[in-house]
């Protein structure tokens, strides 16, 4: 039987009727949706731009969010969106923000349909994208064995030998997602496991799993398609090859901060630096979730950062109003 993963949409025209937003959220993952919920409840004129779900849509299931012992990633984002929908917050799901500038105290967000949206405060909640290994062969064999999306590509590796690169929760979950498909699964990670013990317990039940820790991938090798990897076993200081038809790279994310790289302070890897209230180096511009320099990339932490940002933006606007700046915020 087939399932249907219907994307969430909202009335796109409602967005265009708002001349100036109090709080404009860029990104509609957990951080952005929760920020919009909190901001709207405060009475701020709120809007969201971005396709709903973020990295949750790449996640088969979530089992570490309090109150949800086990829930599908898509179902979780649908629930977040449905909750927000009860407050009539317009969400522009089909557009992307192409530039963000600040002119005369107002933020101008230009979208890919050529329109410009105005806002008094903005939240960057654009999340992260898959980090690459940066080794020879990775680009050459992309989609010829190299994959960054287990849920998308696992079916191509039925009865084949696959490698999972990484040692965090995403890698540990990728192993579990590959069990129904792969003939053998080999984990290669350059240091020790960082994944939750509860996930590693599940690995003990997988008979065709081999784990190489303290092992660094030097190259991805192949001819027309990938045929294996060359690795350095750091403990034995020896180089060896591991034959495989595919490799799923799950080594974390890089921040999607290109939009504001010239506007705000970022760290060496491009993560947006925020204060304890999620404000960036630009007054009125906030950031939350995986795009920030917060080290633990977790759904519940992103959600909480979204709430903090919305409440801080509310306080910020009140102070702005007291100082004589024009604002339309209504406190409830």
């Amino acid at each position, binding site marked *: 039987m*087939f399932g*249907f993963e*219907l994307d969430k*949409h909202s009335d796109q025209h409602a967005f265009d009727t708002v001349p100036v937003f109090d709080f404009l959220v860029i990104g509609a993952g957990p951080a952005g949706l929760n920020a919009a919920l909190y901001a709207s409840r405060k009475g701020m004129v709120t809007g969201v731009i971005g396709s709903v779900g973020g990295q949750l849509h790449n996640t088969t299931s979530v089992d570490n969010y309090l109150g949800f012992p086990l829930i599908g990633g898509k179902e979780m984002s649908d629930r977040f969106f449905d909750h927000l929908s009860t407050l009539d917050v317009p969400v522009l799901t089909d557009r992307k923000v192409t530039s963000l500038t600040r002119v005369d105290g107002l933020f101008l967000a230009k979208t890919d*349909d050529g329109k410009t949206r105005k806002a008094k405060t903005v939240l960057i909640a654009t999340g992260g994208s898959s980090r690459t290994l940066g080794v020879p062969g990775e680009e050459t064999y*992309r989609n010829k064995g*190299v994959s960054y999306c287990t849920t998308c*590509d696992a079916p*191509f590796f039925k009865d084949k030998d696959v490698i999972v690169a990484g040692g965090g929760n995403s890698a540990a979950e990728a192993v579990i997602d590959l069990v129904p498909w792969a003939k053998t699964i080999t984990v290669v990670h350059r240091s020790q496991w960082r994944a939750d013990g509860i996930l590693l317990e599940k690995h003990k039940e997988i008979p065709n799993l081999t784990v190489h820790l303290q092992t660094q991938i030097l190259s991805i090798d192949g001819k027309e398609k990938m045929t294996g990897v060359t690795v350095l076993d750091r403990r034995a200081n020896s180089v060896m090859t591991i034959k495989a038809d595919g490799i799923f790279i799950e080594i974390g994310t890089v921040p999607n901060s290109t939009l504001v790289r010239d506007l705000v302070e970022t760290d060496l890897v491009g993560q947006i630096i925020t204060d304890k209230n999620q404000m960036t180096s630009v007054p009125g511009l906030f950031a939350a979730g995986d795009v920030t320099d917060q080290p633990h990339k977790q759904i519940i932490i992103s959600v909480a950062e979204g709430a903090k940002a919305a409440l801080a933006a509310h306080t910020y606007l009140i102070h702005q109003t007291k100082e004589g700046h024009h604002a339309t915020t209504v406190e409830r």
Partner: protein
Amino acid sequence: MPQLLNADISKQIKEFLSPMKDNITIVVFTKDEPCETCPETVQLMEEVGALSDKITVVKKDLEKDSDDAKLYGITLTPSFVMLDKDNVYKGVKFNGIPAGHEINSFLSAIMDMSGLDFGFPEAIKDRIRKIGKDVNIKVFVTLSCPHCPGAVQNAHRMAMLSDSIEGEMIEAQTFYDLSDKYQVSGVPKIVINDVHELVGNQPVEAYLDILERL
């Protein structure tokens, strides 16, 4: 066969389709056994078709209606094309059932084909309309891929704007041999005129950069 779409999904789809502008027609091609997902694909078309009076579903057989199949370049089953209000084929084709995440590219194509503006900037529309050479864009997908509907949507939207562009979704698991031929082991995989490849859900500009060099 039980309903494919449950009451909640049907309600959401009905609401989604309500702004449709003009009528559209879906022509779905199947064949007798063996065709694993043919019955389900026809059923899905009929269930979605029943949710809007602007959708007509026409059923064809690949062999018995071979003239029609030839007209739309159909060689696989199940496959279907979407026609505009004047029954004109604009190059919008699906091979395999658009279930899972791909329901989204299917519904998007219905809305776009009904004449709603999908918001491409004028400069992009101009570039698409200027493509003179015949172009075929294959987008290989899996039903569990959340990034794939966007790639299919782009290919179909370009097809709707240009008489020389055809965009087709190919469900990689149903058409395993074809996937193997094009060495698909990651999706979305975009193949232009059987030669040029794009990996991942790329912006329309990335497609155009290739099309303009053909």
